[in-house]
């Protein structure tokens, strides 16, 4: 049921080169800023519960006061992040109509299916998050612990469903069209489209890396400042290990994804990798700025034939260039796409190195790296959260900007999807202002919580529940 461009002429506006609606740029900017903000919280919603749950398990199982305290405090952090994530996610679903009525009016009956399935998990997640967050001390300890399991599971399935909607836009399938109307829909083919199998795991693993990195950050800072308590060590080690374990899998999936994009969305791939003309022996550019039809000399390094090698395991592999489509159908800013892609890969590789570093040290010494290398290691650990966020955002830039000018690849142009309402610049300004304030406010709230917790004697001196005083060995 793959549907091509020809079939859709009925749905498309009379000319593909119709002058784009004036709202396209502000609409894209508003969607980008709302999604770019929400996705960080979404990652925390998807993956942080699992990290909290592991910590809580250690606390209960080993009667570990420091672990209990961390789990408890993290559930407070979750309370803030989940709330802001829930409402910013709601706004995104309103934005689908406010900004993209041309997409929803035509394809809502198709793309809505994965969103509907996501709704189930969103509800379950909200209910059990509330029970967990507010059930401390009031529910039996192990029952309370298990109320987190549905949150972890629905985090994964909810993410799968949202990503299914996005991957459908990259590789639309599962519907037929006649006379400009959708006549039949195959829900399974919509959900499991050709891009699902790599986008889903890529996003979920990204969420685990982001959540792990961000959760580890404050404790890495604490360790760097010489507060080497068990509380700080555990607070750093557990989430960072989760992120480190996710990393090699993420790199493998990412490699698969790039190859799949080369065949499914060759123009996106060409822009990511600076392939102007279809050819064999295509070089792989490391960094580089594209200008006036070439990479500006001195800004990047070309590895001969490596791109062909990566795409087809042979230097003779033909890689499709962006010359295969008219300029109006190529994504804008190849430099942005290419550098975003490179940045994402670079951060992934650094995370891999840091994970191996920790693994080796732990294997040999049962300890964190010490001394001067230890400082470098911890500094990297302290930066890993923000780095993973940057990598994820860069990945989304590649996915979304790289699909332009299409909203649904080869089916619906963004100019056809955008609203005709003239108020978008105003709502864009309001959105940017509000999200800037929310970003600052969220960080401020977390910082205040941290200050308050540090004031209570550096963490784990306080008696945690479920542990007799004798076991307070938490330093």
């Amino acid at each position: 049921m793959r549907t091509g461009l020809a079939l859709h002429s009925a749905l498309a506006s009379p000319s593909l080169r119709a002058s784009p609606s004036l709202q396209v740029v502000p609409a894209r900017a508003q969607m980008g800023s709302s999604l770019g903000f929400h996705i960080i919280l979404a990652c925390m919603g998807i993956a942080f519960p699992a990290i909290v749950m592991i910590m809580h398990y250690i606390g209960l199982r080993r009667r570990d006061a420091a672990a209990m305290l961390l789990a408890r405090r993290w559930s407070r952090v979750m309370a803030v992040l989940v709330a802001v994530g829930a409402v910013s996610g709601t706004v995104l679903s309103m934005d689908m109509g406010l900004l993209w009525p041309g997409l929803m009016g035509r394809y809502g009956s198709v793309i809505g299916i994965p969103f509907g399935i996501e709704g189930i998990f969103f509800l379950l997640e909200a209910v059990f998050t509330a029970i967990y967050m507010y059930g401390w001390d009031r529910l039996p300890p192990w029952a309370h612990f298990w109320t987190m399991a549905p949150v972890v599971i629905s985090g994964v399935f909810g993410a799968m469903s949202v990503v299914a909607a996005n991957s459908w836009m990259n590789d639309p399938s599962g519907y037929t069209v006649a006379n400009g109307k959708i006549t039949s829909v195959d829900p399974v083919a919509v959900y499991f489209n050709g891009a699902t199998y790599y986008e889903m795991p890529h996003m979920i693993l990204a969420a685990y890396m982001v959540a792990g990195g961000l959760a580890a950050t404050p404790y890495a800072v604490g360790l760097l400042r010489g507060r080497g308590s068990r509380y700080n060590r555990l607070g750093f080690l557990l989430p960072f290990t989760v992120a480190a374990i996710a990393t090699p899998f993420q790199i493998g999936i990412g490699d698969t994804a790039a190859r799949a994009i080369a065949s499914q969305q060759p123009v996106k791939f060409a822009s990511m990798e600076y392939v102007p003309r279809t050819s064999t022996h295509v070089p792989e550019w490391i960094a580089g700025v594209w200008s006036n039809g070439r990479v500006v000399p001195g800004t990047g390094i070309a590895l001969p034939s490596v791109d062909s090698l990566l795409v087809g395991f042979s230097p003779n592999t033909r890689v499709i260039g962006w010359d295969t489509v008219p300029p109006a159908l190529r994504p804008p800013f190849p430099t942005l796409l290419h550098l975003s892609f490179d940045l994402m890969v670079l951060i992934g590789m650094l995370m891999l190195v840091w994970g191996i570093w920790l693994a080796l040290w732990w294997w040999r010494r049962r300890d964190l790296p010490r001394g001067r290398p230890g400082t470098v290691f911890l500094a990297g650990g302290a930066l890993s959260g923000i780095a993973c966020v940057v990598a994820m955002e860069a990945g989304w830039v590649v996915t979304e900007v790289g699909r332009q000018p299409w909203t649904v690849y080869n089916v619906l142009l963004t100019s056809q999807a955008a609203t005709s309402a003239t108020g978008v610049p105003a709502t864009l300004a309001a959105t940017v202002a509000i999200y800037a304030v929310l970003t600052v406010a969220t960080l401020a709230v977390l910082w205040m919580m941290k200050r308050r917790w540090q004031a209570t004697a550096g963490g784990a001196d306080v008696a945690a529940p479920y542990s007799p005083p004798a076991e307070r060995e938490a330093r």
Partner: protein
Amino acid sequence: MIADIVAAVLVLVATAYAVLGGADFGGGMWDLLAGSATGGAAARHRINLSITPVWESNHVWLVIALVVLWTGFPVAFADIFTTLFVPLSVAGLGIVLRGSGFAYRAQAGSVRWQAVNGGIFAISSLLTPFFMGTAVGAVVTGRVRASGDPAGSWVNPTSLLTGGLFVAVAAYLAAVYLAVDSDRAGEPDLRRYFTRRALAAGIVSGALAAVTMAELRTSAPSVFTELTQGRALPAVIVSVLAGVAVLTALPTGVMWPARPLAALAVAAVIWGWAIAQYPYILPPRLTIAGAAAPAATMGAVLFVVGVIVVLVAPSFALLYWLAQRGSLREADEDGAGPPRRPAR
């Protein structure tokens, strides 16, 4: 046929959002009106305890409603969000500010920071339902279409009255629920406090509903006819009876039926609207059948709804049961104190 079922599901989901999520907006309004930091402390504390564990879950019904609308009736969704760009944009931003303000306030260290975030929470609790109401008024009066008037569609007497009605109803629901919660928690002063407010908001809601209905006589004659003499009349009667029953039960201290009856009074208005408007999703032209997605999509929507009924409904029941028996509260953050007994 299957489109009618999905439309009915949409109405039920919207009802769930109204009677559950609506009360959370109302809680914000009473927070706004609770007075000074010291004088209003007890009421604000009660509001906090009642809303905190449930508001996010209640809020998700809005997302479900949006998804059912855009999946089942994509054209209607696109027309609504294009014509009503302004009020729905404001409502969207209000939703973000309300939730964030509430979450920040709960974790805030200083009184000043609490006041700022509490203010944002409270004011956006007022604005959001008002603008949602104007959008509903625009739909009822047939002003939403492919290229509807972006201003006149919602700036008109019916829309503004409906906006006001939404605000009053949210405040009413919240006050009733809070009175019941206060009673359950053994706080007679707060019970009387919220009972007075429930009565006031109930009377205002009833009056606004009557005025809005009178206005419909000219702005949406066919809907008016159905509501006053046609097939939607029973819903109106149920709503009035339930509303009057709440107003008599609360002052006499009979608390147990107040919550379901207040919810029923509100739900019946929504059902009356839907029945009166049937078979149109966007009167005066777009019918439910005309806007409907292909059958397989509708099947998928009903499948999702089935899973929600099987999986989510018991979860919600658990959440409410735990919240009602006081098992869900903001925990002492370090767990240093002795475990507190659940308040009953």
